[in-house]
């Protein structure tokens, strides 16, 4: 199998690194199946967002409609000045768009709950590491790169915490 050794996964947050390893361990056809599983596992956004689509932002680079937004919540230990805040990710994409949903599912499982600094440190070309470019085509991969870019831009725009 072709190795994708351009960048190793040690630079990635643990959950995302694990996903990348899972994809890389598979043959190309099985990688598509794994992406399909991620599309099934993508959670629906909470009702308060579903009822207010204007609170979500459309990623126009995706071939199918995809909306996303981020929120922050206090870090796990809840101490002021303690653990950094966590970023929560919410996605909405129709079932007729499984590829788009699959990409969103990967980013959700890999990034949801991380700190802003951890998300900002994810390399922009991380989607290339999934080894899907040939099977999906570069055209379709751009949607996922755009999705990651949008998340990082939104995280970067968060008000700075004291």
């Amino acid at each position, binding site marked *: 199998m072709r190795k994708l050794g351009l960048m190793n996964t040690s630079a990635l947050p643990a959950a995302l690194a694990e996903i990348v390893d899972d994809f890389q361990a598979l043959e190309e056809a099985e990688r*598509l199946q794994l992406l399909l599983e991620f599309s099934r596992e993508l959670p629906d956004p909470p009702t308060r967002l579903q009822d207010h689509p204007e609170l979500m932002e459309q990623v126009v680079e995706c071939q199918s409609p995809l909306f996303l937004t981020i929120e922050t919540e206090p870090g796990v230990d809840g101490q002021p000045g303690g653990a950094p805040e966590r970023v929560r990710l919410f996605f909405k994409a129709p079932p*007729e768009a*499984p*590829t788009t949903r699959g990409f969103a599912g990967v980013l959700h499982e890999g990034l949801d709950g991380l700190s802003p600094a951890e998300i900002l440190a994810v390399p922009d070309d991380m989607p290339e590491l999934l080894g899907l470019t040939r*099977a999906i085509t570069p*055209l379709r991969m751009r949607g996922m790169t755009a999705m990651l870019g949008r998340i990082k831009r939104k995280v970067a725009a968060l008000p700075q915490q004291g």
Partner: protein
Amino acid sequence: MPYPVEQNEKFSAYAHPERLVSTEWLAAALEGGALDGGKLVVVESDEDVLLYETGHIPGAVKIDWHTDLNDEVTRDYVDGEAFAALAAAKGISRDSTVVIYGDKSNWWAAYALWVFTLFGHEDVRLLDGGRDKWIAEGRPITTDRTVPAAGDYPVVERNDAPIRAFKEDVLAHFGKPLIDVRSAEEYTGQRTHMPAYPEEGALRGGHIPTAASIPWARAAAEDGTYRSRPELEALYLEEAGLKEGDDVVAYCRIGERSSHTWFALKYLLGFDTVRNYDGSWTEWGNAVRVPIVKGADRGTVPAGFQKQ
């Protein structure tokens, strides 16, 4: 022997009713065991590369427009050898009746049908209404893997000339009708890509001089089926101004949406000479020294390109 042609009132008004089948017809054919023996092969072709895997018509095989039909290195379609291997792997023989369906009003299915036609596959039809209509009617879908018995497909070289136009052909075509099937914003040059598809942009926005604007989706009804013959005539003859016997070129952004229009002009209205310019706006809008027109007017044949 080709599979029997569907007879119904809507289809019989079309020039080539043998190119369409209805969901009722396909459901009955499947129940009758039509898929046994490879005489009839059902192909799903979608924009989304994973949509087939979420559920497809029982026994249908998948052909992806990008990974199966486009050449990986040259901007072109696969060659005869690759097409023969693809068809055989999907259980298609040269004499099989192939019914293609897909998402988005058969937009990609029409594109796959057009590529099959480049290879001269004789009996290839569209499922009117496509995937969405089949599902809306509550007809069976499955995630069971289809494992077709290998088909027997000869290596046939593509014959592009009758239905495919290249940039040079379009430059030589000035004076004859062109149909631009993109959105109004793309036609006028307000934007160079489809709404929500910015990644396939071009340097310049506008249209090929003299092209009439008839966005592709106007040929489809709400349920994704093709509009009736009188409705199509109102669109292409009255509005676009096509006349019987015209030699027509249709284009869009990469040749997929215009395949849907090509099908309507060629098989439903019966224009003999209709070519799809698959280079379309991603080539024309970026090419050096080709004329374009901005705005809603069709424009005129540019100086220096008049037919002798």
